[in-house]
């Protein structure tokens, strides 16, 4: 394992300190560690957004704190949901009196810990709504499992709900928009290589030089199937087909196409992937109206990518285009 780190058990501490040093518009609450909040929070009368989860998915979530997106992010240990304490601290720190929306990726740990924090916040008189994101079509038979995972689609929920909160929507409205985005977004990922959790020191699974995993999550868990390595175009087709079938997306739909890198994938490869995905969608009469390409929802140093499609309507386009000013996503300001 070769990483630019010091003590493996200090990676999250030091990365959060780095985020604080690099982005003076953010404020890090040290006790309980670690809450990354907007410096201008709480904003009286505005709904506040809190998200969080295990670390190792950077820039998710800390890199999305700022104007038009999250009010606070709560990073847990690597790949481990934070406990209720910092989630509660974040909720209290950013509540401006209009209530707080928790955006939770659908993992047992995240759901349970956010649930407890929400109960505690409620007991302290803070109104909390929770939206659970579960966009990953790789999990089949979701009735017989812990359900679909929340993966790259989480970013889209955070951006669009954040824009709604910024313009002054009520908690119920912001939550409804977040749920609508979640209902319209689908993702699927793949890995060329596993990732290595710093304190584990060994790869999260073994993969031969001629094998890839299709349908991976973002915690280094193995995927839905292991297949022989193939050219990018074939991989894109394998990812897109179940996404399109699932919602389903159909000819005439307008979509946001998001090609996401898993952490160690060079941008040049993501563009090769994007090219094919755009080509396939065009052939199906699906209009790519908005795009995003980059490593935004990652899995430490995993090599691979995920593809996310969000069905758009005018209201969602307006919210997507609205100004955002965060370390990792920024436009219009």
């Amino acid at each position: 394992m070769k990483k630019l780190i010091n003590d493996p058990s200090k990676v999250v501490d030091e990365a959060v300190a780095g985020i604080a040093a690099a982005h003076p518009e953010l404020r890090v609450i040290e006790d309980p560690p670690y809450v990354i909040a907007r410096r201008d929070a709480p904003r009286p009368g505005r709904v506040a957004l809190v998200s969080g989860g295990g670390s190792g998915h950077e820039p998710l979530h800390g890199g999305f704190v700022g104007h038009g997106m999250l009010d606070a992010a709560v990073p847990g240990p690597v790949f481990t949901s934070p406990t209720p304490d910092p989630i509660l601290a974040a909720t209290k720190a950013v509540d401006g009196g209009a209530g707080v929306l928790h955006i939770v990726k659908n993992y047992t740990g995240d759901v349970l810990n956010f649930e407890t924090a929400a109960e505690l916040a409620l007991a302290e008189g803070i109104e909390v709504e929770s939206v659970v994101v579960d966009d990953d079509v790789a999990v089949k038979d979701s009735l017989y499992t812990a359900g679909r995972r929340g993966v790259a689609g989480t970013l889209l929920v955070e951006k669009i709900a954040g824009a709604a909160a910024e313009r002054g929507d009520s908690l119920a409205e912001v939550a409804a928009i977040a749920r609508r985005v979640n209902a319209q977004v689908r993702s699927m990922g793949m890995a060329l290589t596993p990732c290595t959790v710093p304190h584990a020191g060994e790869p999260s699974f073994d993969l031969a030089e001629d094998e890839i995993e299709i349908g991976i999550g973002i915690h280094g868990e193995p995927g839905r199937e292991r297949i022989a390595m193939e050219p990018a175009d074939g991989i894109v087709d394998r990812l897109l087909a179940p996404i399109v079938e699932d919602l389903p997306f159909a000819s005439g739909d307008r979509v946001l196409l998001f090609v996401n890198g898993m952490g160690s994938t060079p941008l040049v490869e993501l563009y090769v992937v994007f090219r094919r995905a755009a080509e396939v969608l065009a052939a199906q009469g699906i209009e790519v109206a908005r795009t995003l390409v980059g490593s935004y929802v990652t899995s430490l140093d995993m090599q691979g990518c995920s593809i996310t499609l969000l069905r758009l309507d005018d209201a969602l386009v307006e919210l997507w285009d609205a100004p955002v000013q965060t370390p990792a996503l920024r436009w219009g300001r």
Partner: protein
Amino acid sequence: MSLDADWTRRWIVLVADRIAERKAELTHLDRDIGDGDHGENLDRGFSAVRARLDDLDAAATPGAILKLVATTLISTVGGASGPLYGTAFLRASTAAGDAETLDDVLVDVLRAARDGIVARGKAEAGDKTMVDAWSPAVEAAAAATDARSALEAAATAAEAGAAATEPLVARKGRASYLGERAIGHRDPGSESTALILRAAADA
């Protein structure tokens, strides 16, 4: 010898010791069908528990000790196992009430712990989770004649339950994403449950 406060402390310290010892093994089980942190998670939690045990009032009842374990796990473990074990110890503490020893309430305490996990996690028997160790343990303890043999029976049943998760497909937790690929691997949470209950028998 009764299951008094001293025993409760010995038990918890033994759990902390054995988790520290077997951390890598638990994490390895979790690497195979989860995200490779179960040992780390529990070790972080029980190390914190051990540190806070010393601050506890010397006169603390078994129930008070179990409550400290619960709140410490909830606020330090995170992940799925943090709230689940936290709720288990919290419900166990409530079941123990103010009793000076757990001898007479042992089965209620174990059952309350199991029920708490089921209430939070909604797993059923056979879903390949820690419930598959807890449930047979509760049944075995209920059938025993005294507290000591109940602990021994619970530990043995939990170990068998953990082993019996190996052929299963998971329907809860991260392993459920793997479908058939989870077959042949033991559920890490059922193994840590067996560890916790074996420590109770040995304490």
